[in-house]
Structure formats: C-alpha cells, structure tokens
C-alpha cells in the first residue's frame, strides 16, 4: 500500500514534468531537452532563497518566478531563431541549452549535492499502514494542478488559442492568434510546472545537484512519450504509470538494480507497438 502511494506521488511528479514537455511539444513541435534542467535551476533557486531568508513560501515563489522567466528567455534566445528550421537542428540546440544550464550550475554551486530542507512533514497512520505526508501532499497538489491545467486549456481564451496553434499554426495566425506570444506563454507555463516539480522533488530527495534534473527529465519525457506526446491526459497517465513501475521495481529486491533498464525497456516496447504512444494521435505524413 505505501509502495503504491509512493509510486503515485513519484508518478505525479513525473506527470507534472511530462506536462511541461508535452505542452511545449504540442505547440512548438519541439522537444525541450532543457526542461529537466529548468527543474534543477528551480531547485537551486529554492536552495539559495532558503539559505537567505529561511522562509519556504518566499523560496517557492522565487523558484516559480525564476523558472518562468528562464523558460521565456530560453525560448526567445535559443529556439525562436530556429523556428522553421529542421527538427534535428532544434533538437541539438535544446541539448546544448540543457548542457549549458548544467555547467553553469556546476560552476556557480559546485558538483557536490547541497542539502535543502523546505519543510518537513511527518507521517500519518491509516489503520495498519503508515504513509508519508509529503507523498500525500504531492499527490493532492499535483492532481489539483492537472485539473486546473486541463480546465485552463479547455475554457480560457488563451487555452483555446493554444489548442488552435497546436492544430494548425498558419490557420491560427489567420484567425488573429498571436502565435509567437502563445508559444512564449506555453514555455512560461511549462517552466512554471517545472518549478512545482522542483518543490515536490526536493520534498522527496532533499538535496540538489547540477544533474538533479537530467534523470527525472529523461524519465518524464519517457512518460510523455509513453502517453502519447502532445496529449495532456496522456502525459498524466504515462507519468503515473512510470512512477508506479519504478517504485514497484524498487520494492522487489531482485529487480531493483535493473529499474532503469526496465523503465526504458517498457518505453521501447510501447513505441514499437504504438509509435505515437498510448493516447497519441496518428498524423499522416504528406508530401
């Protein structure tokens, strides 16, 4: 039972990160490799503000602001000049950005892991099982964010504009949607989600290092791909599935060293059977 709750809460962190990937992919048609590293920068922002002020609220707000701005800046500087260029070029640039953020963090803060304690939550007992409260909080807040995001995309004007841009950029532009602004807003939202992911991830591991974001980033991307990239419910399902698989594998002693291999193996299998992921739509390629 506690394994499942842990899996769900890890899974919802993955789902949050995967949402960032999937929104950017749906709208800008590019893989934002630097997304995981935005989480890492968010974690360092939390670390710095906790040391300066000691107040978790200030730290969290700062992290959100820093990540959002960073997302917009990255989009403007690195990705905007390449709009319309080949996908390979954009992908390589994104890898460059990810590498850049990692090395900047290492130069400033060092390669060592730095401890961060935002706030400590105890455990609760439900009858026989003991559950960690932070896992529950993560689960609930993530669920709220996901519902909020879905409503935002469905009901607000900006959200509908996003859907329009992801369906057909040129047609959206003709309908009076400012495509550049929408892409910037998408990056801002994705990075803001990354900041939340940083908070919850730190609640679980309570230390930050320059490579903090790369593994969860890759795994969350895996989750987004499993669910069908570009689809918001797909990202949630994929994230939670991956989190459950990871925690279940870790709880079995014989399998635990091979967790990474199993997760990525499942990704490859799913892609072989359904190349667009579980909920992805198939796009027919036209000449």
């Amino acid at each position: 039972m506690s394994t499942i709750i842990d899996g769900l809460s890890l899974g919802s962190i993955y789902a949050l990160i995967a949402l960032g990937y999937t929104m950017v992919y749906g709208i800008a048609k590019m893989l934002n490799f630097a997304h995981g590293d935005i989480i890492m920068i968010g974690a360092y922002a939390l670390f710095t503000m906790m040391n300066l002020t000691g107040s978790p609220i200030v730290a969290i707000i700062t992290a959100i602001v820093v990540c959002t701005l960073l997302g917009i800046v990255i989009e403007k500087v690195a990705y905007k000049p390449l709009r319309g260029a080949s996908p390979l070029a954009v992908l390589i640039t994104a890898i460059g950005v990810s590498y850049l953020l990692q090395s900047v963090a290492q130069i400033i803060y060092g390669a060592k892991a730095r401890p961060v304690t935002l706030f400590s939550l105890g455990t609760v007992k439900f009858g026989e099982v003991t559950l960690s409260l932070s896992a529950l909080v993560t689960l609930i807040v993530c669920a709220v964010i996901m519902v909020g995001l879905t409503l935002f995309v469905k009901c607000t004007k900006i959200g509908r504009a996003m859907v329009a841009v992801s369906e057909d950029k040129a047609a959206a532009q003709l309908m009076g949607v400012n495509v550049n602004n929408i892409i910037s807003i998408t990056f801002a939202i994705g990075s803001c989600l990354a900041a939340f992911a940083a908070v919850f991830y730190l609640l679980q591991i309570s230390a930050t290092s320059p490579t903090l974001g790369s593994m969860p980033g890759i795994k969350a991307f895996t989750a987004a791909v499993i669910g069908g990239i570009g689809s918001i419910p797909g990202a949630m399902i994929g994230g939670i599935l991956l989190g459950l698989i990871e925690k279940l594998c870790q709880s079995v002693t014989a399998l635990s060293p091979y967790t990474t291999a199993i997760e990525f193996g499942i990704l490859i299998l799913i892609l072989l059977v359904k190349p667009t992921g579980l909920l992805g739509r198939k796009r027919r390629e036209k000449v």
Partner: protein
Amino acid sequence: MTYFGYVKNDFKFKHIVNYVIVGAALILFTVLQLVGAIPRSTSYLLTQISYSIILSVSLNLVVGFLGELSLGHAGFMCAGAYIGCYFGGILSEYIGSKLLVLIISMLIGGIVAAVFGLIVGLPALRLKGDYLAIVTLAFGEIVRNLCKNVPWFGKSLGLSTKTYGVKLFIVGFAVILIMLILLQNLIRSKHGRAITAIRDNEIAARAMGINVTYYKLFVFVFSAFFAGVAGVLYGNYATPVLYSFFSYNYSIEILVMVVLGGMGNITGSIISATLITIANFILTTKLSGDLAAIKNLVYALILMVVVIFNNAPALQSFKEKFSFAALNDRLMEKKRAKNPEKFAADIRNDSAQWSRIPTKISMDEILSTDVVSNEGIRDEGDKPSAK
C-alpha cells in the same frame, strides 16, 4: 571522359585528403614511437584521439548522412568495451600474441555492438526524429544499467582489463584507415546516394524504389560496429572500464564533435574530434574540480552557436555571403571568368558527379508548376556560369 579523368577532376582531393591526413599521422607517429621520441602521455593522447575519431566519424554516418539523431552512441561503445574486453581477457590466457588478442576482441566487440545496432535500428524503422532520439538515449541507458549490474563485469567497480600499452594508438589509426576506406567508398557508391536520399526526403526516396528499411538498418549496424571497436580500444587503454564513463553526456560530446565538424563532412569530423580531444586533454589537467564544468559550458555554447548559425532562417542570407562554401564559389567564379572554355568542358564532364547534384531540393520545388524554379535546378549543372 574516362573513369580516371572523372576521378581526377575535383572531388578527388576532398576524397583523398582524409587518407592523407590519417596515413601521414599513422606513419609519422609510428616512426616516432619506434624511435622512442614520443613521451608516454602523448601516446595516450594519440590513443584518445584515435578512438574519438572512430566514434565521431561513425556517428556522422547516422546523423550527417542518414539524418537520424542517435543519442546512444556511447551505449554501443559501452557494449563493445565491456564484452570485447571481457572476451579479450579470456582469450589472452590461450593466445600469446597481444596484438592478435586485441584484433579478435575488437571484432567481437564490434559484432556485439552491431547486433545492438540492429536492435536499435528496428525501432528506427517506425520512429522518426525526436522519438528515435529518445529511444536511442533510452537504449544507451539500458546498456549502461545492464553492464553495471551483470555479475561478470565487476559491478560498480568496473571491468578491470589488461591495457595494451603505449603502442595502442598505432592499431587505432590503422582502424581509422580501414574505416575510412569502407565508409568513403560506401558514401560514393549507389548505396551512399540512397542513404543521403533517405535523409533528404524519405517519402520521395521510397517512391524511387529505395529500400529504406534495409538502408536504415545497414547504417545503424555499420555505425554501431565501429563504435564497438572504439569501445574495445578504450577498454585496452583505460582500466577499469567503468560504466559511468559511457553516460549520455559522452554521447553528447561525440555529437558536439560531429556538429562542430559539419554534419555529413568526414574531414570535418576528423579535425574536430582531434581538436576537442586535445582541448579536453589540456583542460582536464589545467582545470580541476568544479571549474572543469567550464569545458562543458564551452561545448554547449559551440553546439548552440554552430547550429543556430547554420540553420536559422533569418541568418541564411548572411551565411550565403560569408561561409567558406560561398567564398569558394566566388573564387571559382573568378577562375571561370578567366578561362570559360576549359571550365565549360569540365562541368559538362562531371555533371554526373553526385556532389554537384543539389540534394537539398524541397519537395515543393520539385512538384511546383513554377517552371522558372525548376529550370534553375536543371541549369546548375549545364551552364558554365549562371551569369
């Protein structure tokens, strides 16, 4: 024109220059090594250069010629290094000659990596671009994870190998030569043109009757084979072979070499692999601790600047004026103006030469009814000069 005349004309230099560079380096350093003029550290550096060149040139085949992004090259190298060196260790008990053991273990490592290449190539048939990149990345991590946990390979301590010694780079350079002969002839052949056709437009290539499945698998297997060989070279240079070396960052380092040298440019890959390895070698001794990250910072910047410069639509007109190719074109233009008859004959003769045929024609251009734009493409090979 005879075959030799055709070869003599102008890409011959481009084609032979790689053999000249590598062959000269091989002979020069071998002689120096036998005389004893090479210090130990330099010979290690040469070994590093040799396996870096093998890795970057073989990755260039996938990224530059086939046009698929592979982020798992270090994974192939890892498989080759662990398995090749493991069998090398067993063989060395039965075979006395160290060189023979090295060659056999390189073959084993290469073949094992090639099998892995086949396995990765299979999803490559159904997936494209970003999806394929993530699958190759995932694959690299799977290999690393398995090598870390399989009991024969020393677990987290790494596989301890017998190092070959200071003469290893001679073998390394010989492997580069063999690889270049295979690869350059492949690229100039009908198969190579099929591969670049797939890169430029897969659907059009399929419509032309090119067996896309076969060529994609072939390229992945070929490239993985040499990555495996490079892995065995690495394993004979460094002991213990440690899984953490083959992380996804190393795949990216190889990618930086390819991008910096120019995608689809073999000479460029050789030069940039050499420069980056030398820079690494110097920087790792100069920068210690956290400052070592400056090296990565520089890589990241190089990667971004080179890619944005080469691909940004807004910068295309700037690039057309100032890139090396443009300068070269202008120079040729002047030469042509001086002696028009000679060049007219030359161009007529090698109009079948593949490097002159514009491969980057967008599908719209081919299908468009706009006669003028089609004319421009056809004329390029026929007329002595456009103006």
